[in-house]
């Protein structure tokens, strides 16, 4: 990794010192040590740039992030705007548990009342530093030793969402984690952090939303660690609807144990430059993951989904299905890596990426990569990029449907299977509305 030595690295060190992240009296020593090591590691690694030898970041240039002096705010102020924004988001909070983080820090005022489920902890990390499971897991899944953004997030871990579901527990209501960036005069950086642990035989629906109150320029550098015990089942939704001037680097690291299931549906609608790292290790026999994703881009937006599935055990399955709709001069990348290790026989894996280009200036990149070391496996992939089907359009027009509506129908049809894979009905219809809004802006 090339190092872009810059003033901003130094600036992060200053923020680190000023926030007292290695000296805070109230924080446990292990945490302070983890932060300090991460800070050191971030400085050693430096921001990844697209220079040669940096294949992982081939499609995404983080130069603007590296050269901007983002400020890490000490404490956000709760504003009426935040409440209003959440209200407008249109969720009825009785139907789910809501954890709201303002600039990365827990906001009890904006969150639902304390969730009390036997054997479970659902709340802010900052109130659970001493829990053995937190200490034993935080920072062990997400690789801060090799990845600068993860190191930076870990160095600035002050709070975050903790969802720890005890064994044999089915959480009935979905849990919605909302990371909201508030309004600042400076350009700020936030480090949203999430730790999800499902013990054996438990299940939950968890959603992560990343958004902002105003259309400001900021960096959201998020890390989620997800640990799934034997025979547990997690539905995970990630909704990214940042400001149009925002940068977002998100890393989600998932560990699946025996017969566990992980299904993720991601939707990237907002932001200026977005990079998602979704890494799953399918590390138990008969474990399976389904990773679905949707991105709709316009203007100069850039969205890069970097998805890695590591089949480290035999008899494991994975399905990846990412679809994009690109307008204007927007660019996207889908980099899908599948690793099947030497002893991982009978793995069944399929990856697909399809893009619909609404403009001749938009650019979709697909880069599949397979490292297969076992010989008795099924592994396939498919990719396509193309414009709207003219014959299909004519078919709709010939039935009297106005062109704008016909185009919208075809585009929505193209992405419908991703949205349909959301099992939480409330979110599904919310997502349909958000997609509708975005497309109506794009189709004129």
């Amino acid at each position, binding site marked *: 990794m090339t190092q872009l030595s810059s003033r901003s690295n130094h600036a992060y060190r200053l923020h680190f010192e000023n926030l007292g992240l290695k000296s805070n009296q109230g924080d446990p020593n292990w945490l302070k040590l983890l932060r300090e090591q991460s800070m050191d590691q971030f400085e050693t690694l430096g921001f990844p740039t697209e220079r040669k030898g940096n294949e992982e970041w081939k499609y995404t240039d983080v130069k603007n992030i590296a050269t901007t002096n983002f400020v890490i705010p000490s404490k956000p102020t709760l504003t009426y705007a935040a409440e209003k924004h959440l209200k407008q988001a249109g969720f009825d909070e009785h139907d789910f548990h809501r954890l709201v983080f303002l600039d990365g820090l827990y906001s009890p005022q904006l969150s639902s009342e304390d969730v009390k489920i036997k054997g479970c902890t659902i709340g802010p990390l900052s109130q659970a530093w001493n829990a053995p499971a937190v200490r034993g897991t935080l920072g062990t899944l997400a690789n801060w030793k090799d990845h600068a953004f993860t190191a930076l997030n870990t160095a600035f871990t002050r709070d975050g969402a903790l969802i720890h579901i005890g064994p044999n527990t089915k959480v009935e209501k979905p849990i919605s984690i909302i990371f909201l960036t508030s309004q600042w005069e400076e350009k700020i950086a936030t480090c949203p952090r999430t730790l999800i642990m499902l013990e054996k035989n438990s299940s939950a629906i968890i959603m992560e939303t990343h958004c902002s109150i105003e259309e400001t320029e900021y960096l959201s550098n998020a890390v989620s660690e997800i640990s799934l015990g034997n025979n547990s089942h997690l539905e995970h939704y990630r909704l990214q609807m940042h400001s149009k001037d925002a940068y977002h680097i998100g890393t989600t690291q998932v560990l699946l144990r025996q017969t566990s299931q992980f299904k993720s549906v991601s939707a990237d609608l907002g932001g200026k430059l977005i990079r998602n790292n979704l890494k799953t290790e399918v590390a138990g026999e008969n474990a399976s993951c389904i990773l679905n994703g949707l991105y709709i881009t316009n203007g100069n937006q850039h969205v890069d989904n970097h998805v890695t599935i590591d089949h480290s055990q035999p008899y494991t399955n994975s399905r990846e299905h990412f679809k994009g709709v690109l307008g204007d001069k927007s660019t996207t990348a889908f980099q899908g890596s599948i690793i099947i290790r030497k002893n991982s026989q009978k793995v069944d894996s399929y990856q697909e990426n399809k893009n619909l280009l609404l403009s001749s200036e938009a650019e979709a990149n697909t880069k599949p990569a397979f490292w297969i070391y076992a010989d008795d496996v099924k592994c396939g992939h498919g990719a396509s990029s193309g414009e709207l*089907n*003219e*014959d*299909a359009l*004519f*078919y*709709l*027009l*010939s*039935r*009297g*449907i*106005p*062109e704008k*509506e*016909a185009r919208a*129908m*075809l585009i*929505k*049809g*193209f*992405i*419908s*299977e991703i949205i349909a894979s959301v099992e939480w009905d409330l979110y599904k219809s919310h997502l349909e509305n958000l997609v509708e809004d975005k497309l109506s802006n794009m189709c004129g």
Partner: protein
Amino acid sequence: MPLLHIDNLHVSVDGKNILKGVNLSIERGEVHAIMGPNGSGKSTLAYMLAGKSGYKATKGSVLFDGQDILTLLPEERARMGMFLSFQHPVEIPGVRLDQFMRAGFNSLRKHRGEPELDPLKFDRLLKKNVELVGLQQAMTKRFVNMNFSGGEKKKSELLQMSIMEPRLSILDEPDSGLDVDALRDVANCIKKLHTLENAVLLVTHYQRILNYVVPDQVHILVDGRVVRTGSKDLAHDIEANGYEQYEQAHT
């Protein structure tokens, strides 16, 4: 005034002249059949009338209900009461047949100044019509033409026709690829939908469907021209002797 009047129509596609002077006049209540060998321009005529992009009229005129339609968009022609049943209806993933039909149906109603039908009311309307064409209601919840059998595709086209209630239906080979039973069903359905108020222009390669849907006139299209117009007997003549006589006479 005829419902459709085509006068000396020349059409080119990708710079290639396909239709070279077609004349045709259809009155309300009539059924006309267009027959011809492969490549004679039958489907081109159907697409041209429906307004497909890339089909260019280089000469001649097409009047629908007295109005020149050549400059109109396909959706405008549909709203005037023209309907094309496709020979090969396109599959559209993610778009449900009922939602697609409701969108078309409502755009026609909107054009006529009538209130749109909500999904519930439209469903009721659909129920009546799916029985008429011999489909199942559940079929309309599937994506448009996706994994439909050949017969189901043809019936789905007729279902759309029954919902849209067009004044002119252009049926492009509604009989192709059907077995005897499906052909009879499709033909009977066309007969049911044909009234004294509307007209049918039936494009076909074979005479057999005309045993059920009896045409008022049969036009033989060869190399982009109508080389012969006659009664239904003309179709029997084709069945017995083939198109060769016309092709030879023409060249």
